[in-house]
């Protein structure tokens, strides 16, 4: 198998140029998909027979929650690649993922809380999914905190990469234990973020939002990656050529 494309990705100038070329290919579809999904979800889909119009926040909440986990996994994969094969660009990619993932997590928590108010009457409920999201937020904050705490870039990269890998192994364990904990204390009337049963007219906008968010993540990642490479390689000669081009 020809892996030269993978090796070339390890070169900062190549990836920098590639990222600039690819960004519009993710940014435009992201905008279109999100707009279409919002239109389909907020306007076209009929109100849920149980939850009325309140369920519509799922069109932002569910993709955000899904993305928060996917970004953490991507971050851990990039970190592992950087750790094992010592590729600096992989570390730069992991560093770029973290704030994006943390933002998705905050969005999921805020929308989950806003969903809770009309549904449960309170802004917060120790629902297993919300609790897991909260723990995930702390995992992101810990990752970013460790990066910020170590001055030497290489050591910060490698230490936070190890943390990301340890975290990703722990995420299923934490999620399982939180779900189990929650199941012990369930009141008979289940107060959870129950997903309404989905008709096609509801499902299609949700999938569009999910794809749109994924595209958005890719676009944001590429932009942040370029900024990250620029910062790390600012003393290199190729930067001056790339910027003057």
């Amino acid at each position, binding site marked *: 198998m020809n892996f030269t494309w993978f090796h070339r990705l390890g070169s900062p100038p190549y990836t920098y140029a590639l990222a600039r070329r690819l960004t519009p290919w993710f940014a435009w579809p992201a905008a279109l998909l999100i707009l279409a999904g919002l239109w389909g979800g907020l306007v076209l889909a009929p109100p849920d027979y149980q939850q009325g119009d309140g369920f519509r926040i799922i069109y932002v909440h569910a993709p955000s929650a899904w993305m928060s986990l996917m970004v953490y996994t991507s971050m851990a994969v990039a970190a592992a690649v950087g750790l094992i094969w010592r590729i600096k660009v992989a570390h730069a990619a992991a560093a770029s993922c973290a704030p994006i993932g943390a933002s998705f997590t905050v969005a999921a928590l805020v929308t989950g809380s806003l969903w809770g108010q009309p549904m449960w009457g309170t802004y917060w409920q120790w629902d297993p999914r919300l609790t897991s999201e909260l*723990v995930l937020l*702390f*995992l992101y*904050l*810990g990752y970013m*905190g*460790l990066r910020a*705490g*170590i001055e030497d870039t*290489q*050591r910060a990269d*490698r*230490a936070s990469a*190890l*943390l990301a*890998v*340890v*975290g990703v*192994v*722990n995420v299923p*364990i*934490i999620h*399982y*234990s*939180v779900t*189990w*904990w929650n199941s*012990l204390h369930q009141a008979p009337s289940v107060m959870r973020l129950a997903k309404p049963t989905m008709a096609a007219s509801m499902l299609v906008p949700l999938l569009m939002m999910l794809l749109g968010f994924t595209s958005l993540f890719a676009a944001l990642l590429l932009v942040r990656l370029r900024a990250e490479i620029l910062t790390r390689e600012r003393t290199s000669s190729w930067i001056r050529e790339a910027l003057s081009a």
Partner: protein
Amino acid sequence: MATAGAYTQAAAAVPVSALEAVSLALRRDLTLAFRKPAQLIQPLAFFALVTMLFPLAISPELSQLRAVAPGALWAAALLASLLALEFLFRDDALDGTLEQYALSGQSLTALLCAKTLAHWLLTGLPLACMAPFAALALGAPSAALSGIVASVLLGSITLSLIGSIGAALTLNIKRSSALLSLLTLPLSLPVLIFGARATQVAISGGALIAPVELLAALAVLALTLAPLAAAAAVRISLE
């Protein structure tokens, strides 16, 4: 001064086995700890103090305290073990002996396992011995005490092991106690959940075998994976 030859002949070139190196490391840490007994007492005093906060903050009624006893006990145990974690690698990193461990030709994983074991013997084990007293103070019935000791014993093993990873990652960071807590607490949540559950079951007199088995499973998982991660983290910090 003795002649050059004397010590070269006396110093055998026999390498030391891994087990001997590990037991030597264990003995060294225990010896060092007992030369500074004040440092040993601090986490235990902290544990007692935090336990005392709950009756003062909630109510002196034992029946009310019994309801929060599992949570209070485990929150206090978690915080006390976090406090103690800072001493795990810090001194060795500062005086260069951790570096010598990495260069000794022995498995760093095994040596760090020995250090974590020593740390647990000095903090986790005493914590498990103090837990029944704290539980009594929070209204737990005496029938529950053996179950509480067992759960804190198993849980503290996992806490020490998970904490060793965070301690190794934050070796070079000054004033890292908040960051260390931020890194370690999310990873310790399963221990908290299962441990508090075990304590709850012990207090209400139910069958303890299931929660204790879960705690034991966590301890075994931590024992197999955490020293590897800690050794990798130490090597990264030494770079």
